[in-house]
C-alpha cells in the first residue's frame, strides 16, 4: 500500500542502522511512548539493528493497558444489564476486570458488540431506540476527537439512549510522571506520532527544556522509528534537548485545530488513574458539563467502584520502563494472552503481548534478566 510499504525498505533501514551506530559513542536509554511503536519495534526486530549501547524502553502508550480496573468493572456491570447494548473496540473485550471481562459477559448472553468506530455505536443507538446503547470510550488524544464527535452528534440529534463510559488518557502528563520519578532511566523520547497529529507538539517543548530530554515526534513504520532513534541519538550525543518532528508527513506543530476544537468542547481535563501506575493529575479527559447527560457511569450509577490489582502482575513497572516483560516471573507461565493477569498481556500493543508473540522462545530461560534490559541484547 502506498505510504506504508515504502517505509519498510530494507536497504534504507540498514543505512539508518549504520548511521546510528556511527553516531553512538556512549550508552543511551530511549523510550518509545506509543504501544504501536513498541509493536513495530518487536515485530520487525528494530531493536536488534541498533548498537548494544542503545536501550529502547517501552512506554505507557497503550490505552488498553492503562484503562483502570474500576472502569473495566463498570463496563462489565453495565454490559451485564438487560436492555443494554454494550459497544467497544475489539481489544478491550479480553482485558481482565477484577472478576470478569466483557467476553465473559457476551458468552453469558450479554449484548456486547465490537465496533470499528464510535459512530457505529451511535448508529446502533439510532436503530435501537428501545435499548440503552453504551460505548466504552477509551484511548489517547488520537481517539478522543472521534469519540467527541459521537457524543456531539448524539446531543445534536437528541439520541437519548446513547451514552459513553469515558476513560480517556493524555500523553504529556504521563511522560512528565515518568521523568519526575526517582526511578527514571529515560534520556530521550520518541513521542507518539498520531497523538501529535491531533495535539501538535508545543506541549512537549517545556518538557524537553525542564528535564533536558530530546523528544522526537515519530511515526510507526520501521524507517520512521529508525530515523526517530537517529535524530534522538544525535541530540543526545550533541547535548541538545529539543523537540524534533520526524513524522512531518502527518504532524504539524499546531496539530489538528478542528479536532482540538471539538475535543475541548465535549471533554474537560480531569485527574485519571492509570492501571498499574496510579492517579496522575490532569492526565485524562472526562465529559464537559454540557455533555454530562451522556455519561454512562452516572446514568447506570456505577461510579463508586474500587478494585485491587492482581499482586502477581508487574505491568505498572513495565509501563514505566522500569522492568521488561520477561523479568516478570509470571510471564509466559501464569500469564499468557489467553489467560492474562494484566492488560499489557492483552492488547497487541502491550509490551508483554508483543514479547510473548515475537520473543518468548528467545527470552525464556536463555538470557539473564539483566541482559534483556538493553533492547539490542534481547
Amino acid at each position: 500500500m502506498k505510504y506504508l510499504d515504502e517505509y519498510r525498505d530494507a536497504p534504507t533501514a540498514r543505512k539508518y542502522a549504520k548511521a546510528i551506530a556511527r553516531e553512538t559513542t556512549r550508552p543511551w536509554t530511549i523510550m518509545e511512548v506509543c504501544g504501536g511503536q513498541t509493536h513495530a519495534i518487536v515485530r520487525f526486530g528494530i531493536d536488534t539493528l541498533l548498537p548494544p549501547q542503545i536501550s529502547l524502553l517501552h512506554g505507557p502508550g497503550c490505552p488498553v493497558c492503562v484503562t483502570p480496573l474500576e472502569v473495566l468493572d463498570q463496563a462489565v456491570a453495565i454490559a451485564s444489564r438487560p436492555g443494554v447494548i454494550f459497544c467497544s473496540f475489539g481489544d478491550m473485550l479480553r482485558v481482565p476486570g477484577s472478576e470478569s471481562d466483557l467476553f465473559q459477559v457476551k458468552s453469558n448472553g450479554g449484548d456486547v458488540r465490537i465496533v470499528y468506530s464510535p459512530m457505529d455505536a451511535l448508529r446502533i443507538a439510532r436503530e435501537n431506540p428501545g435499548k440503552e446503547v453504551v460505548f466504552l470510550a477509551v484511548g489517547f488524544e488520537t481517539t478522543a476527537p472521534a469519540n467527541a464527535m459521537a457524543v456531539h452528534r448524539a446531543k445534536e440529534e437528541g439520541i437519548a439512549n446513547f451514552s459513553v463510559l469515558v476513560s480517556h488518557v493524555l500523553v504529556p502528563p504521563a511522560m512528565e510522571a515518568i521523568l519526575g520519578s526517582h526511578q527514571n532511566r529515560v534520556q530521550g523520547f520518541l513521542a507518539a506520532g498520531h497523538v501529535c497529529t491531533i495535539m501538535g507538539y508545543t506541549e512537549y517543548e517545556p518538557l524537553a527544556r525542564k528535564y533536558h530530554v530530546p523528544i522526537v515526534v515519530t511515526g510507526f513504520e520501521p524507517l520512521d522509528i529508525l530515523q526517530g532513534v537517529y535524530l534522538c541519538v544525535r541530540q543526545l550525543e550533541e547535548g541538545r534537548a529539543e523537540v524534533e518532528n520526524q513524522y512531518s508527513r502527518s504532524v504539524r506543530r499546531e496539530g489538528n485545530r478542528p479536532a482540538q476544537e471539538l475535543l475541548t468542547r465535549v471533554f474537560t481535563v480531569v485527574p485519571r488513574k492509570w492501571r498499574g501506575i496510579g492517579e496522575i493529575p490532569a492526565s485524562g479527559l472526562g465529559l464537559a458539563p454540557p455533555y454530562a447527560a451522556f455519561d454512562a457511569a452516572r446514568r447506570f450509577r456505577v461510579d463508586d467502584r474500587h478494585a485491587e490489582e492482581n499482586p502477581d502482575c508487574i505491568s505498572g513497572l513495565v509501563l514505566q520502563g522500569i522492568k521488561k516483560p520477561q523479568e516478570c516471573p509470571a510471564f509466559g507461565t501464569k500469564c499468557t494472552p489467553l489467560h492474562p493477569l494484566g492488560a499489557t498481556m492483552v492488547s497487541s500493543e502491550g509490551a508483554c503481548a508483543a514479547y510473548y508473540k515475537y520473543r518468548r522462545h528467545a527470552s525464556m530461560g536463555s538470557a539473564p534478566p539483566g541482559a534483556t534490559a538493553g533492547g539490542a541484547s534481547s
Partner: protein
Amino acid sequence: MCLAIPGRVESIDPSDPDLRMARVRFGGIIKQVSLAYTPEACVGDYVIVHVGFAISRLNEAEAQQVFEYARQIGELEQLKDGTAAGGAPAQ
C-alpha cells in the same frame, strides 16, 4: 490503539457537510470515512485514518523526507570515508 493508516480519498458525499463522509481506498478495500477534521482534504488526496476519521491530510512532499535524509546521511558518510581514504598516504 492509535493505529492509523493512509488511504486515498475516492469521493466525498456532500449531503452532511458536518461529517463530510468520504469513500477512502486502502489498497483493495474501500471504507466510509469522515473528513470532518480534515476540511482541506479533496478527492485524490491521501489521508491518515483512525477509527473512521481522517486525522490528517498526508503531506506528500514531507513523505519523502525520510528517504531524502537517508540519502544525505549516506553521502555524508561516503564523504567522510572518502576523506579518510584520501587522507591516507599514497602507496
